[in-house]
């Protein structure tokens, strides 16, 4: 994972920060080193009625997530 920093130039954020490009590069490198196997599927057993309706709406809009 990319390093977390606490830059002092933060104007409104006092917590930790993560550089996106650095994080993405670390992830890409890690994925090349580690065989992730078959990505685990989300069984969807915990979806609320609201969530199921939202996913249905996304699907009907043509989304293919």
């Amino acid at each position, binding site marked *: 994972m990319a390093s*977390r920093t606490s830059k002092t130039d933060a104007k409104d954020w006092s917590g930790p920060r993560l550089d996106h*490009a650095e*994080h993405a590069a670390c992830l890409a490198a890690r994925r090349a080193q*580690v065989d992730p196997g078959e990505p685990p599927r989300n069984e969807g057993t915990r979806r609320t009625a609201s*969530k199921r309706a*939202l996913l249905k709406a996304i699907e009907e809009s043509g989304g293919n997530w």
Partner: protein
Amino acid sequence: MTSPYRPEFEAALSLLAQVSEAMRARGFTRPVLVGGAAAEYYTGSLLATGDFDLCSPAQPELEEEMQRHGFIKPSGPGMSTRGWIHPELRLGFEIVADVPMDGNVDRDHILLVENFDGDLTFAIIAVEDLIADRMGQYASGTARDRLDQARLLLRLNPDVDKVYLDRRIREESSGDYGVSDIED
């Protein structure tokens, strides 16, 4: 640099960052990305999600900004949802709570992702809390697949704070599990 992310996921992150900036400009806290989309972020899209779960204590204002950025409320039979969809990008956002994980996440463990798509930013739950959330769901017996998700998240993010991670897993699983249960 070759991005590990799906293009449509990056487009969704960009939209989240724009909405977040609008909230910040209005003096509200940024929404916090949690759930499956956070898992997709920390796995470089190896875990793919269907929508974005957000936490925000300013739900009406966040929904205003989402509408300004093109989101609409789904309507029609079977469409009773708290979520919003973006018809052009064909994705969904849902505000699931005021704060992540019932307030068990310390504000100091919410990260600001910087330098996304230029100088945009967005807030995201820490990977340690996300793993603990997966283990809590696994421990509940309702989502056995979450154990594999937790293991994958740790394998791809090995530099986690393991002391904090172990504590959070134990809190979320009522003491049933710890970090040793997901290490290789």
